[in-house]
């Protein structure tokens, strides 16, 4: 194994660790919401600094490898993809942090009915599943798995589109829960972005492995480029 191979391997390991950390942040933000566990929410807020540190370290490592090894072809595509995935992951970490900031503002435990009708918990589950999918796709260099994210993201879009009407109706019938309802709507909007970030990550994985650019292509076009 060459020196460059070792550096790239370490970078891959660091990015996978960051994936794990962000997945765990998303899980904890969900749990802190369900149980109104402010200690857990606080833990997520503290851990966000670790996510940021990963981002800085991976950026620095990419910069060093680019400067010292002048990588080309698949190595160059890998580095470019890692740089962007790094940034996408950090934003997913920010979303988990935002959810926990809402949790910190909650006065009462979130009402079960609200969580159910808004499909917020489903949104958490689908976001997590998508994030786990892109992690596995990256780890196993599986572009078929990466492509599956484009379909899964549609569920998040659908929940997000309907959320406005559902929450408005809920507020009309539950005047005492206006703040909580608005927080719920905000969280849905945030989690919808997890899907977008994961789609970007999936596109980067496909770029790195197949050298195909799927950015700014429609769902239909993405399916056709194989």
């Amino acid at each position, binding site marked *: 194994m*060459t020196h*460059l*191979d070792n550096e790239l391997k370490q970078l891959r390991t660091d990015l996978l660790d960051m994936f794990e950390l962000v997945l765990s942040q998303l899980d904890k933000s969900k749990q802190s919401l369900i149980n109104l566990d402010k200690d857990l929410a606080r833990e997520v807020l503290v851990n966000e600094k670790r996510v940021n540190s990963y981002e800085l370290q991976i950026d620095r490592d990419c910069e060093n490898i680019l400067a010292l090894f*002048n*990588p*080309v*072809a*698949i*190595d*160059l*595509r890998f580095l470019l993809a890692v740089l962007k995935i790094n940034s996408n992951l950090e934003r997913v970490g920010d979303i988990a942090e935002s959810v926990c900031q809402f949790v910190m503002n909650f006065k009462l435990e979130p009402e079960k009915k609200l969580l159910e009708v808004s499909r917020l918990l489903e949104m958490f589950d689908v976001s997590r599943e998508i994030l786990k999918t892109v992690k596995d796709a990256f780890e196993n260099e599986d572009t078929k798995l990466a492509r599956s994210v484009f379909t899964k993201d549609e569920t998040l879009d659908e929940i997000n589109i309907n959320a406005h009407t559902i929450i408005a109706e809920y507020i009309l019938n539950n005047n005492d829960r206006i703040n909580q309802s608005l927080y719920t709507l905000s969280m849905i909007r945030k989690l919808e972005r997890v899907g977008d970030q994961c789609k970007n990550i999936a596109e980067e994985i496909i770029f790195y492995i197949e*050298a195909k650019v799927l950015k700014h292509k429609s769902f239909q076009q993405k399916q056709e480029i194989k």
Partner: protein
Amino acid sequence: MLLEDILAKSTKPIKHSNMFKIESKDVHLHYGTFHALKGINMSIEKNTVTALIGPSGCGKSTFLRLFNRMNDLIDDVKIEGQCLLDGKDIYSKEVKIDDLRKRVGMVFQKPNPFPKTIFENVAYGLRVNSITHKSFIEERVERSLKQAALWDEVKDKLKKSAMALSGGQQQRLCIARALAIEPSVILMDEPASALDPISTAKIEELIYELKSEFTIIIVTHNMQQAGRISDTTAFFYLGELVEIDSTKKIFTNPNDTRTQNYITGRFG
């Protein structure tokens, strides 16, 4: 002889805009029993830089030397196929090697100035071509040194020995010497491999400037250099042309696994 007459008799060939500047068609070359080039097909457009890359012994320098018939100097060489310059086979009997070498200049790995003055080094090609007009020679020497980005550094010491120049300056002097007879093609065999980074950067910048007037083929072992200066890159391996494509394509997404393994340093 008037300057106009001299210019009219200039060795610069008529440019054929509708055809490739250089082509090789199914070229095979044997050194005795060793099959050094195996059916090479390549077309090179004029005013481009083509980099030939590949491990030592892959045939890239042999291929380069085909185009000014330097391989003819080696015993027991057998060449098959066609090498075309402006659509004409340079191995046909009508072609005189001296004429060919006026049209195809060459720069080698190690700077090889003659033990003469700077001026005489550049003027040498003109003198051996029987050009005697003093002001014409002076004009051409100055222009060639300017083209080779050396004029400002040597204009006050043209009568000094070329051997006193630095390695980078000597190499640019050799380029100026090649340019003086106005070739249309310049072959370069690792022209910067013996130079420091600053001299290398100057040569690379020079190659970039020269391509507007010349067609350049360069052999290099430096992948980054190939990436920086060439429009097209050709990868040779074991006497075969494995892949030729735009340099951007070769260095971001080559088609052949062997190319990828070579440029990423994972060969063999």
